[in-house]
């Protein structure tokens, strides 16, 4: 199993991809997922994060099979 990582809008454009998979390891936080997926790129100040389509903070623990998403401030409405 693995973690699916998704990136939206300007953040995805900046990284040059909209998603990638990552091997699951026990004890990983959302922040760890970012670091591993981007090879240590700095986390944007205003990044929003979600786990399984619900907002979660950077310290939240992820589980095998989770979908983790990173995106910029939302601008709908």
């Amino acid at each position, binding site marked *: 199993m693995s973690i699916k990582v998704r990136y939206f809008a300007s953040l995805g454009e900046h990284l040059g991809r909209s998603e990638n998979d990552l091997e699951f390891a026990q004890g990983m936080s959302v922040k760890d997922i970012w670091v591993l997926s981007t090879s240590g790129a700095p986390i944007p100040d205003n990044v929003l994060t979600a786990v399984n389509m619900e907002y979660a903070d950077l310290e939240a623990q992820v589980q095998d099979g989770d979908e983790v998403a990173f995106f910029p401030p939302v601008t*709908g409405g």
Partner: protein
Amino acid sequence: MKVEICPEAFNPWQAIQDYQAALPSAAAKFGATSIFIGTMRDYNDGVGVQSMTLDYYPGMTEKQLGKILGDAGRQWEIIDAYVVHRVGEIRPDEAIVLVAVWSAHRGDAFDACRFIMETLKSTAPFWKKEVSDTGQTRWVEKNTDGYKNVQP
């Protein structure tokens, strides 16, 4: 309560009437309907805009909008609430978002409609990318608080 993500241009007036017609048990029970419609302007931050693309997070966007409606229903005495949000390529003068709230009393309808709209603006995963009059593309960086005088 219902949330709709709409990839095509929609007529907000027709959408409200259709939804309301399907609420027969609510007829003559609601005394107050509060509605907000967001429409695409042909300018933003002083720049002419010719079109816009609205990106979203399929699955999470609907979930988050549903959560907002549920929260509104717990905080105010409302009979029903309905949100339609456009995605994809949008042209000036087309509707972007419709929020409608039906309630027995006006205070509840007004407050819930505003809460839904403000919470949608700050938490629903949508992102706007504008194409200016000169053909330049830019991501809108953040939503403002909605008053002219305090626009950045």
